[in-house]
Every structure is written in C-alpha cells, then in structure tokens.
C-alpha cells in the first residue's frame, strides 16, 4: 500500500513542473500532457530505480529526456515535437536553470501576476488560453490584425515574467 500512496503523491506534487519541463524540450503544446503521462507510467514501472523521494524531480526529468529523445528517433511520429533542431538544442540547455520556475511558488506567483493584469490584457489572455481562440480569430473579433494580437500576447507574457521575478524575490526576502 505504501508504494502506491507514495507514487500518487509524487504524481500530484510533480505534474505541473514536469509538464512545463516537457514543453520546454520543444514538445508541441497538444502533446505535452500525453508525453508527461508516459513519463509517469514509465516511472511507475521503474520505481525501484528511484533512490529517495527528494530526487524525484530530477529522476522524472531524466525519464522525460529519454522519452523525448525516443521521439526524435521516430520518423513518423514527428508531430509530437515541433522541430527536431529546436528540441535538439533545448535538450542541451543545462538542467536546473536558476530562474526559479522549478520552485514550488512559481505557479502561485504566475497566478497572482495574472490577476494583476489590466482588464484588457486579462480579457485577451482569457480568450486565448481559456477559449483556445487563434490569433486570427481574435483579430477578427477585436477588429485588428493577427500580428497585432500575437505581439500583444508576447508583451503580456514578458510582463508576467518580470512580475513573477518580483513576486519570488519578495517571498525570498
């Protein structure tokens, strides 16, 4: 019983960061959850190879890298990754980059920052991410161009990044 309980805890505790990690290896947005679930299935089968729970995050990332490497080899299943060269270069990025996203508070900080966005930005973010609307479609609804919508979203994401850094800095002090 002990093992399953531990495993379920690991899934809940690490799913968010693992999914972010998988996406940051250049996996296509629609395939992220699929691949991350594969990671946990493999993790369950190879449970014995995990030494202590403290190392779980690193261990899971290792499995994720292996699975993504497998994806690179599959000619026909390329659609899970966006672009081979992109994934190859992202795989080389050193593992724990020290910008805080692997910390527990990161998603909470992001949430707080989303709430702080001015109303117009919030509406746009909601339409893009909740409703999954494409930029062309939003442009039509807002009476602007798709490029303008995309650039606005880019800027909003940049603002969020700065805001998160501020948030995490505050809690550290």
């Amino acid at each position, binding site marked *: *019983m002990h*093992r*399953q*309980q531990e*495993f*379920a805890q690991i*899934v*809940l*505790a*690490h*799913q*968010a960061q693992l*999914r*972010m990690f998988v*996406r*940051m290896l250049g996996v296509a*947005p629609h395939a992220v*959850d699929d691949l991350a*679930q*594969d990671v*946990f*299935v493999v993790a*369950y089968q190879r449970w014995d190879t995990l030494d202590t729970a403290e190392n779980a995050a690193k261990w899971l990332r290792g499995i994720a890298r292996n699975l993504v490497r497998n994806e690179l080899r599959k000619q026909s299943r390329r659609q899970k990754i966006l*672009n081979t*060269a*992109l994934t190859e*270069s992202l795989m080389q*990025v050193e593992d724990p*980059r020290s910008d805080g*996203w692997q910390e*527990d508070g990161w*998603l*909470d900080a*992001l*949430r707080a920052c*989303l*709430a702080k*966005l001015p*109303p117009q930005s919030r*509406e746009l973010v*909601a*339409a893009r*991410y*909740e*409703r999954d609307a*494409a*930029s*062309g*479609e939003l442009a*039509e*609804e807002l009476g602007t161009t*798709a*490029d303008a919508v995309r*650039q606005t*979203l*880019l800027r909003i*994401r*940049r603002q*969020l*990044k700065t805001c998160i850094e501020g948030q995490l800095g505050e809690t550290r002090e």
Partner: protein
Amino acid sequence: MNRKAFDILLAKMLDGSIQEDELELLVREAAQDEQLQSALLEQIRIDEGVRLLLHDSRGGPTFAEGVAARLTADADRFEFLHRVLDRTDERTQRTLFRRVALVAGLLTCTAALLLAAIWANGPRQSPTQLAAQRIVTPPPLQVERRAVPPLDAGVATVKQLLQVEWSDAAGARVGDALTTGRRLRQRAGTTQVQFYRGAVVTLEGPAELEVRGINEAILHSGKAWANVPEPAQGFVLLTPDIEVVDLGTEFGVEVVPGQRTEVSVFSGEVELHDPRTGRVEQSAISLTTGQGLSFGSGLPQAIAVDRAQFGSDEQLRARQQRKSLEGFERWRQWSAAARQDPRVLIYYRFEPEDENATQLANEALDAEEAAGYVIGGQWTEGRWRGKRALDFKRPSDRIRFHLDGEYDAVTLAAWVRIDGLDRPLCSLMLTDGYEFGEVHWQFNDKGQLGLAIESTCNRYSESLVDLTDLGKWIHVASSYDRVTGEVHQYFNGERVDSLQVDHPVAARFGAAEIGNWSQPVSQPPLQIRNFNGRMDEFLLYGTALDESEVRAMYEAGKPH
C-alpha cells in the same frame, strides 16, 4: 535578424501559426544567440504556465486521473496476456493477482488523494499540491464566462396552424414553446397544441385556450378536441363549468361562456369533476365511449355524441398537405422568377437531380461559374414535403464554390434550420481565410447574425435565435452597399439591424464555403466554425435588395 523580426516569428510559434521554414529560421537564430534562446525559453515557459492555470482540461487531478487510466489499461493488457498464455500456472496467477491488486490499490489511493487535494487544506500539503488544488477551483481570471443556458420554461408546443386568425397581436408560430399562463386566442382557423406529456389539443374556430402545465390547460371558450396517449393519462382540461380528467382517450369539449359546457367522449374514458369541490372520487362522473353530457344552469343533460362535429387528424393531415403543396407551389413560382433575375450571382436551390452527385448547380441566369461542390452533408427534407435540403452536421460537411470579381453591392439570403449553435462562430458562408474585402456571414453562439467585410465592417445583429428556436426553418438575409455604405440584416423578412460604414470597400469572394470555414492552402488549421443544421436555399445577389424585396422572398418561401 533583428530582435523585432525574431519576436514576430516567436509570437507565431507560440500561436501555432508558424510555417515550417519560418520555424527553421527561428531555431537557427536562437541557436546562435544565447539571449534569443533564453527569450524563447522564457516565452514557452510562461505560455505553458498560463495554459496549465487557465485551460479547463488541464487541472492537476485530471492529469493524475489520466495517469491512473493508463496504468489500468496496462494492467488489463497484462491480465489478458496471461490468461491467454498460461491459464494453469498458479505462480503466474499469483503474480497477476498481485499486479492487478497493486494497480487497483493505486487507483483507489490516487482517487482518495485527489479528493484530499481538492477538499482538504491540510498543513502537510506542499505549495505545489496547493497549486494543483487551486487549478481545480475556478481561477479568479474569468472574464468571458458563457451565459448560463436558459432554463426550459416551456410546457407545450405549437404543433400545427391552419388558416389561423389571431384575436390579439401575440399570436404564435409553429414550433413555438408555450409557457404556463400563455393564452392562445383565435378568431378562426385550427391550432394544434402538443403538451410535453403528449396530449394534443386542437382548437377549431373562435376559441381561447390557456396553457397551465405539461399536462393541463383551461379552455375558456370555443370548441376543442383532445387526443391523450398513454403517457399523458391524467391530462386535465378545465372549463368554467366542469373539470375533465382524461384516462387515456379522445374527447371533444365545447364551451359557450355563461351558458354551457358540453363534453363528448369519442373513445376511452374520462372523469368529470366539479371544479368547486376538486378532484374527489365520490363526486366524479365517469363517461365512456359514445357518451356525452351538457352542463349548464340546471342538471347535466345527456347529449348525442357526433364525432363529425369536431375535426379529425385525418382531415387535418389532408388540409395540411394541401397547404404544404400550395406553399411549395408558391415558392416554385417565386424560384422560377429568381432564376430569370439577372441580379442573381449564385442560386443554389438544393434540388439536385442526383443526390449522389457532388456538384450543386448554380441556377442563376448567367451562371457560368460558381457551381457548388458538396463535401459531406446528408440530403434530407426541406421546408416542405418533397423539397430537398442539405443537412450539415459534422465538422467536415461543407459546400465549396468559387466566385471571381469585386462587387459594389451584395445581398446574401438563405433558408436555414438551425439545430444548434455549438461553436463561438457558426458559418453560413465564409470566404477562405479573411483578407481585404472578403465576406464572412455567420451566426455566433448567442444567436446573433453577423456580416463582416474585412477592413470595412464586422457587425452582429441583436440575438435572433435562442434554444427554443432550434429546429425551425428561418429566413436570414444581409445586404451591403459600397456606394451608400449601408449594411442591413433581415430575419424572417423583417429588417432587424442597420449600420452605416465609414470606409466601404468592394466585396470579394474567391474561394468560399457554405456551412464551414477553410484556410487558403498551406496555412495552419483554423478553429472549427461548422454549421449545425439544414439549408434548402441560398442566394447571392450582386445588388443590395431593399426591404420589400427581402420581405417578398420571405413571404413566398415561408414554410407555414
């Protein structure tokens, strides 16, 4: 490459609209410049973070359930294999049992932990678990909440109308949902109302009926007959003098206010109650097939039952058929004239000679081009028996056409039956993509009719269709005139929306689709906007029709 050009590509990548060669370029640039690469990673990271927080389907527990489901599927495969390979090996059986028990245990635990994560707020949860928990509860950031679906207040529906003259302006249309308290007052004609439990009440001549519930009505005056099938047993028809409780039958009632109420049972049995004492069994009078009673000032009097005094379903059907044929014929004449109208650019009558053929003829006078190509869809019945229509249901269903040229004025008109407004936007006719001057004609999920001409206008009417209108044939038209700058929209022959645009441009079509939306070749796929419903007539005029012409089109083509 400068930063600005890089940002444009990066934004396209995150939006899923980047082309293969652009992506190659982006990746090459990022590989050479550490700053660009960290900008790329930062954008991907925030994008994924926001997706995790905001997208409904991506809560932590949902994800964990997915993991559990995969492990179960794994165990099933395992179990199946061993059953096939070795039924007798006890050791295998034991291992199998342990394995299955393990996974079953995992599932139980996962479920329990998920519940704990959702409901409890225990001190032992790590901040990540708390984050997972909060993903489930609605995030604070919800600007565009969809309206709550309207409650169904209807208790009955108008089934048929034949030559009805209403006594008041309210009137009613076939397919209307009637709510409790709704009164139908007619001077002449035949109205058939079907209650949600199944009882059908037919009013004939001058009469007033008040709907009281899914199985109850008041006949205030006039003549009516009721057919009550088994599921509607217990249907109650109140009159000023007597309360009729039906036990599964057919009966007729005539109310002359202030004088008398007559009840005749054609078949089956009804119970009559005094409305003042209520429905108590002791005072109930039972009437069976062939019996009739008249209630007035004195004692109830037996009357002879004469079925012929009331209408019948057969008669109604025959009259309805005649009327339908007349309507169909009226439309045919209008349609023949429309085929001679030189202003018509495209006319799809949806009357194919061969329903297996993919081509739908353009029957406009000078129709050298713009034949429609039917992709998917099901041929079915249109406004009248014998009239054909195309049913659009699947996201693949569509009619494609191509129309060259630029137009200073256009009118789009169609008869459609909307079966659902399932998407944020539902196509009537959309040009591929959406470039300068191109025309988009569609409903949104609020039932508003929209005409958009890229860079000139994007206009939605008030809401015209709600849930209770689904399944009814409706006429929609929108017109645009570059010279005057006027945009008008019409619903069932009436002008419902007008607008004056500031910078009118010529309208263009090119490659376009009815009932769907496509992107020009080599562009990434689009949000689905497929139409859910039927269409049995589509016209595109190279002129802006005026209100009287649109009304005439509606009058000639209305199904009832």
